[in-house]
């Protein structure tokens, strides 16, 4: 942190996101409560009650309806935001795919939380991974500050005419949503200017030019429409970097697809998502200090996944170590396989499910190669 934070506010990630929502001031916000997303929707409800926000908050009866109403509002012509977690995301999974395929630029906060069962309210990334094929953009925040920055950026990315896709800002449940940290907010006016007006090519409510939205497609066209969608998300990568720079000019901070931390000359590199990167940076510093050539690659843009950049970032590394905060029972973990595909042989670990913590000591073992496949689990034998 190069900047002086003395005058920053102490905000939880949830509170910081509420501030961003008030500044963006979306038209429609359909939501259904679930821990750890609740501070966000409650904060937003309070902001409306206090006259600080002016959207239509639609308190739906389930997350399936939350996303359905969000898609409808977005394609109707209204800027739309929502938020959820875990079971909520699972229940709306069907419609998240539909949001992406209908090119509805809905912005959603995901307070990452473990999927049931057993039921658990704490952080892991299994919810994000469930919808990794949905076509929605997923950006992982490392800090409350970044949660704010990404939320401010999200509408621009979502609504760009070449993108028109849902953008999900993934924020580690509790670790970020409920922890207070110093956060610098932009001036509200500045945010409004940055975000601009909501514009989509064919609003349903354009009564003068009737459209049919959500048609049935047979094998003669389905593939083409899916391909178009894939092109849109692939194109979002460059755009994200550009918007990151544009926003960076306002904030003095940088957000981007990858966060390369001390990878110069690194012989071993860790790859991970989200708030764990902060802890990992500390460990990298320590090990570097001890003379070990290690580094970290944090993936912020998990979808679209910057495969070429990952390959290049890891090109001169001897060993790539991927940390997944979600398991794929009977298969290999999601981030690990993605990186393997991008960069060659990797070692994989699973950690942190259901809110289990990851400690510096664990990470030392990971780097040393003495950790089991499941880091933080009791009595997991070391690899042979």
């Amino acid at each position, binding site marked *: 942190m190069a900047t002086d934070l003395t005058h920053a506010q102490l905000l939880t990630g949830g509170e910081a996101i509420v501030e961003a929502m008030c500044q963006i001031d979306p038209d429609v916000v*359909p939501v259904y409560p679930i821990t750890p997303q609740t501070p966000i929707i409650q904060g937003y409800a309070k902001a409306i009650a206090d006259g600080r926000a002016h959207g239509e908050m639609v308190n739906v009866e*389930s997350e399936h309806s939350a996303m359905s109403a969000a898609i409808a509002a977005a394609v*109707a012509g209204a800027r739309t935001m929502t938020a959820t977690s875990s079971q909520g995301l699972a229940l709306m999974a069907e419609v998240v795919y539909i949001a992406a395929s209908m090119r509805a630029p809905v912005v959603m906060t995901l307070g990452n939380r473990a999927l049931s069962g057993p039921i658990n309210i704490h952080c892991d990334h299994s919810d994000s991974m469930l919808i990794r094929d949905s076509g929605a953009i997923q950006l992982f925040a490392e800090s409350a500050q970044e949660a704010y920055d990404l939320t401010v950026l999200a509408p621009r990315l979502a609504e760009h005419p070449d993108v028109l896709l849902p953008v999900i800002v993934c924020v580690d449940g509790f670790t970020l949503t409920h922890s207070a940290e110093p956060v610098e907010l932009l001036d509200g006016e500045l945010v409004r200017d940055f975000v601009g007006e909501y514009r989509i090519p064919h609003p349903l409510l354009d009564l003068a030019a009737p459209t049919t939205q959500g048609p049935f497609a047979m094998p003669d066209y389905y593939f083409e429409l899916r391909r178009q969608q894939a092109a849109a998300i692939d194109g979002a990568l460059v755009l994200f970097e550009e918007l990151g720079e544009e926003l960076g000019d306002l904030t003095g901070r940088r957000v981007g697809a990858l966060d390369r931390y001390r990878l110069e000359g690194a012989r071993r590199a860790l790859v991970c998502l989200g708030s764990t990167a902060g802890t990992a940076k500390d460990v990298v510093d320590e090990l570097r200090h001890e003379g070990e050539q290690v580094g970290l690659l944090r993936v912020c843009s998990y979808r679209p996944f910057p495969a070429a950049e990952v390959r290049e970032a890891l090109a001169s590394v001897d060993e790539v170590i991927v940390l997944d905060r979600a398991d794929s029972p009977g298969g290999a973990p999601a981030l690990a396989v993605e990186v393997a595909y991008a960069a060659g042989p990797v070692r994989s670990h699973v950690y942190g499910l259901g809110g289990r913590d990851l400690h510096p000591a664990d990470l030392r073992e990971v780097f040393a190669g003495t950790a089991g496949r499941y880091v933080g689990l009791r009595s997991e034998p070391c690899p042979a």
Partner: protein
Amino acid sequence: MSRLKTLVREEHGTPPLRGGHSLCQGCGIPMVVRTVLDSIEGPKVVVSATGCLEVATTRFPTTAWNVPWLHLAFENAAAGASGVEAAYRALRRRGGLPQDDELTIVAFAGDGGTYDIGLQALSGALERRHKFVFVCYDNEAYMNTGIQRSGATPFGAATTTSPAGAASFGKVQQRKDLTAIAAAHGIPYVAQSAAGPHWHDLSVKAARAAKADGPAFLNALADCPLGWGHEARLSPSIVDGAVESCFWPLYEVVDGAWRLTYRPAEKQPVEQWLRSQKRFAHLFSPAAAETLEEIQRRVDADWDALVARCGG
């Protein structure tokens, strides 16, 4: 002007649903759709649930819809309508849309998308009091997927998931009374109607629904020749049979007040109506005599209860 002519005028040459779709010959759905939409003045936006109507009218890159039309999935027509309505309110408030000409949002779903998989989204939208008209075209089964039983399928009807056979007599449960369920939500307007010869009733109700100060629910019986098992050209008389036998009464509930909108001069035995449709053919075996009686008993009881509810 006669009501039918007002419908014609509302279309001004452009039917909301045009030909070229792939619904079956003689399908009962389009008449419900056009009668409802033509009876509502001003601009309209349609939201559809997955089902025959949706699948058969929007094969990409074609469309049979002349009005703005939205489909998301099977279970969420009411949620989609909620989103459109919220967007409309927000944009109007911000001055982003024309301020005259109140828009009407009409959702169409089959019985499956209303009684069963779409009920929760509907109930939530009614509770939140979004201003929209939800129309269930009730053809008493999941037709799009091949005539499976739904919560609307009548007791005794054979469907592909409640078939008649050596060990069964068709559906074993009574149908859900969805109109009453909607009425229990305390919304300003609820009505039960039918296409075919009762188009006038349907038209009047659609107009009222659109003018209600809040959500409105219309349950319209729509004939499905394929699923019910009869010749397409007999549709009008078969829909009529449902009404005249009091199997499908026509009524409305306005701000909680129940009112019959049609009372058959003479209640027809339900057997007659059943006999006209293959889905009930197995009930005319001697072994099923009791089932037939049971059906008549139930129709009578329900009708009496309804009449009482409507003030006798």
